[in-house]
């Protein structure tokens, strides 16, 4: 493998502070609180028939800015993909590489394992559980908790809000359950 085939990762001490700066940036620009998952609610209010009170509000006025921010995130993904060599591989820690190999992952190119995340994987039960089930849990859980990684684990913790600490502990409890119990069962390892 050539050095060019490796996806270079921005170190945490660069990326983390940059991510954290979006909290003051959004406050200073328009007094907005950094949090992505509200967009799921705005999108529902915008496109799905919503009889529930939860979706009856002026999504353009309340959520317009955040939906624009979300479209930007997608664009950011496009820009990085266009400037990255196709087929470049992830450089994971040796331990992580071995663990994922034992789950049956052989292809470490791209941002997600193609064996698990492809249209053809949707014909398998595990593909449906991971992509549809996982997506449902993300959307339901974040709406119930009132925030996701950005709103609770970053904005909320930075503002020393106790509910956000509880939510973040919940994120990790669920994540550990998924990683150590559900995924090994699904992937037959």
């Amino acid at each position, binding site marked *: 493998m050539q050095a060019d085939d490796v996806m270079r990762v921005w170190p945490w*001490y660069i*990326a*983390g502070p940059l991510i*954290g700066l*979006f909290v003051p940036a959004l*406050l*200073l620009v*328009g*007094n907005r*609180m950094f949090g992505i998952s509200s*967009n799921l*609610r705005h999108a*529902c209010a915008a496109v799905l028939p919503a009889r*529930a*009170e*939860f979706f009856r509000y002026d999504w353009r006025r309340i959520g*317009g800015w955040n939906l624009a921010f979300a*479209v*930007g*995130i*997608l*664009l*950011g*993904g496009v*820009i990085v*993909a266009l400037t990255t060599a196709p087929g470049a591989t992830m450089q994971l820690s040796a331990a*992580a590489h071995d663990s994922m190999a034992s789950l049956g992952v052989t292809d470490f190119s*791209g941002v*997600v394992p193609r064996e*698990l995340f*492809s249209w053809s994987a*949707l014909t398998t039960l595990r593909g449906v559980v991971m992509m549809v089930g*996982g*997506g*449902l*849990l*993300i*959307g*339901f*859980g*974040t709406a*119930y*908790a*009132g925030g996701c*990684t950005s709103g*609770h*684990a*970053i904005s909320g*913790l930075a503002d020393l809000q106790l*509910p956000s600490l509880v*939510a973040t*502990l*919940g*994120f*990790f409890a*669920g*994540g550990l*359950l*998924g990683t150590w119990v*559900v995924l090994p069962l699904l992937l037959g390892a």
Partner: protein
Amino acid sequence: MTTIAAAPDAALMSDVRPKSTGLPRVAELAVYLALGTLFGIVLTKAQVVSWFRIQEMFRFQAFHMFGVLGSAVLTAGLSLQLIRRFGTRAMDGSEISIPPKSMGRGTPYWLGGSLFGLGWALVGACPGPLLAVLGSGVTVFLVPIISAMVGTWLYGHLRPRLPH
């Protein structure tokens, strides 16, 4: 709104006072689009959008993700302290205010949070990264994105019957 005073979305809904950057609407949206694009680039470059990295985190096999999250919280927290200390105002001159979240019995936070975390481990991406992965060309991520919308929609309809 509803009678559920402690609902976590009270903050969002109480936050409806008109806000603006003082810019025309289109320019304002362009600013947020640009900020979002920068955010998407950082997320993708730091690989926090990757299923591999999320697995590595939940298996405690690398410091990377913990470093990213920890230093992000620290930077955001310090910034908030500075904004408070100096009484810095937003671009349109309004006072910066952060609506506090009410704890209530806390059920939404631990239960909703755990359900979210389980989904996060399965898909390997939270809401922002879902979009960045789709943007990276993994078109099948439309499926978890639409599923997440349906999940939020289901919550909206079940909400009156859930413990808050």
